[in-house]
């Protein structure tokens, strides 16, 4: 395609209005607003957030109250998503399950990306002993199998049989996920930072006398954000799933906390029997993941001037 690389010379044929200098973020936002993908994702995320913050707006049913007489009733009158094994309303549980699930997904993603990116930037930019050290530490953590690591961390945090509050449990699950997955984000960031640091524009900035902070913030970070953003958007869903895995093992969120992970873990064994108890939380999970992937995609494209 190099044959097509010559852009048109539109140098002199434009309206004389003088262009204002704006930054990457302002231009990026202007671009984002024009993308339908962004608005669809934003609307979905807004609804999900509303569900998480004010579940009573969506349902007046208590998600933890089960009536065994309604056990395994399929979707229909009274409960549009049906009832689970213990006769609890699947719709209400799905609504109430949003908050812990989103909290785990969001906080774990944020934690992984922030810690991973900072470590990656430091490792990739310094490339000295800090790089060797961080890379080796990262390898140790990344080498731990997730389930094994999760068991070790969570059981060492709680005595067996100890009753832990919902918030504390969410925090513990997030901590576990972040501790076990930040090296992946670091590796992505480190590779991008090493590549970017070798670009000539970094050389030119150093020749102008730019200090390390300016170089990292103005030159390296904006050019390395894209791969980490995409990774984060995909990991968001993976982390909600990881929460489900931990729940399934009985070391993550558990009754009476309602989360999609808990619901999926419970329903997994009775798929043929009560498919709706699995289908609805899983469906919400998929839509949530999709919304965040779309959002991540839209943001990445908007921050790339070449795509405009």
């Amino acid at each position, binding site marked *: 395609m190099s044959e097509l690389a*010559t852009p*048109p*010379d539109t140098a002199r044929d434009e309206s004389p209005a003088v262009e204002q200098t704006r930054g990457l973020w302002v231009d990026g936002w202007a671009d984002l607003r024009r993308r339908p993908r962004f608005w669809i994702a934003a609307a979905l995320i807004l609804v999900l957030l509303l569900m998480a913050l004010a579940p009573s707006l969506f349902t007046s049913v208590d998600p933890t109250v089960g009536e065994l007489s309604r056990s395994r009733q399929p979707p229909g009158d009274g409960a549009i998503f049906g009832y689970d094994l213990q006769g609890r309303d699947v719709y209400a549980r799905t609504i109430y399950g949003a908050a812990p699930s989103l909290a785990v997904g969001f906080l774990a993603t944020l934690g992984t990306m922030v810690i991973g990116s900072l470590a990656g930037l430091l490792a990739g930019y310094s490339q000295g002993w800090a790089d060797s050290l961080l890379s080796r530490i990262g390898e140790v953590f990344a080498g731990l199998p997730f389930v094994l690591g999760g068991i070790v961390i969570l059981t060492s945090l709680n005595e067996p049989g100890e009753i832990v509050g919902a918030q504390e449990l969410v925090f513990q699950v997030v901590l576990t996920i972040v501790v076990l997955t930040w090296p992946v984000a670091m590796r992505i960031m480190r590779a991008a930072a090493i590549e970017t640091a070798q670009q000539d524009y970094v050389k030119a900035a150093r020749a102008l006398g730019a200090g390390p902070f300016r170089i990292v913030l103005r030159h390296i970070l904006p050019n390395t954000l894209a791969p980490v953003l995409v990774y984060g958007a995909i990991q968001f869903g993976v982390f909600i799933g990881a929460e489900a895995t931990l729940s399934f093992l009985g070391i993550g969120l558990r009754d009476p906390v309602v989360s999609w992970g808990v619901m999926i873990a419970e329903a997994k064994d009775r798929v043929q029997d009560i498919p709706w108890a699995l289908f609805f939380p899983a469906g919400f999970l998929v839509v949530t993941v999709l919304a965040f992937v779309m959002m991540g995609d839209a943001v990445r494209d908007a921050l790339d001037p070449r795509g405009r």
Partner: protein
Amino acid sequence: MAALLEVEDLRVEFGRGPETASVLNGVGYHVDEGETLAVLGESGSGKSVTAQTVMGILDAPPGRIIGGSVRFRGEELLGADPERRRLLRGESMAMIFQDALSALNPVYTVGFQIAEQFRFRRGMSRKDATARAVEMLDQVRIPNAKQRVKEYPHQFSGGMRQRAMIAMSLALDPELLIADEPTTALDVTVQAQIMDLLDELRRERGMGLVLITHDLGVVAEVADRIAVMYAGRIVEHTDAETLYARPGHPYTRGLMDSVPRVDDPGHAAGAPLRPIPGLPPSLAAIPNGCPFHPRCAYAQDVCVDDVPPLRELGDGHQAACHFAERFVAEGTDRPTTHEVVSG
């Protein structure tokens, strides 16, 4: 007798809709046995796309051949059976590229990659094929070929890699070799070696050579005939002597005035070059009339309105300019005496 390769009125587009780029707009040239045709042009002129279309390796999509004809020894290739074309590649026509490192597979030895051709297309045994690979490396003047045949591409220097690629492309004895910027990535002392080698091999084998390049110096040293391309068209076509002495197209002339010469005292001492103003046009919006008119110092009204066809000016000199005769008559104003460095 039909020419070895004849390209006629070739038209290729890239993309669709309003962004459609007209990459080739009626390109035609021919090459005879044992002859070197240089295709000279800057990036975006369509010189590589023409070659890829001839070889049948154009990426489609996004590329789209919308017309024209490519004949090898009289046989039409456009629309021919893909199997037939595959057979012709390597056996009858071969191509070498600018970036020899990416054209060689890093996980196989150089010898294996050359021998592969003999094994799969000539059905030779591994041992015979390797012996032939050594012969090929010898032919491209790689010293110590017996040892080098066992080495991997990364163990070769830039010039050696280009030699290995030439050996590979010539393994099946093609009658036509297309060299796409074969020396652009190389240092000047190595470039000289490779150009000498290509010229020798062409003479030894009576092979037709299409040399695609942007370098006016390289062209002047080896080409029999030269086709100058601009914006997907051939704007001038003639023998080497005529092109440099009496260019008929202002673009050709502009190119010559743009090159700072290592031997030309007239240009030294800070006398400004006379570059062509502006930029080549976007291929999605080629100007009306002569595509060169927005950059041409001599443009008249007629140049804005009418596309000048590639016209015969006598003695096989063709140019696509309404005022070609005038430029030919003027000639170039370079001095005819040169001082030449010799060892």
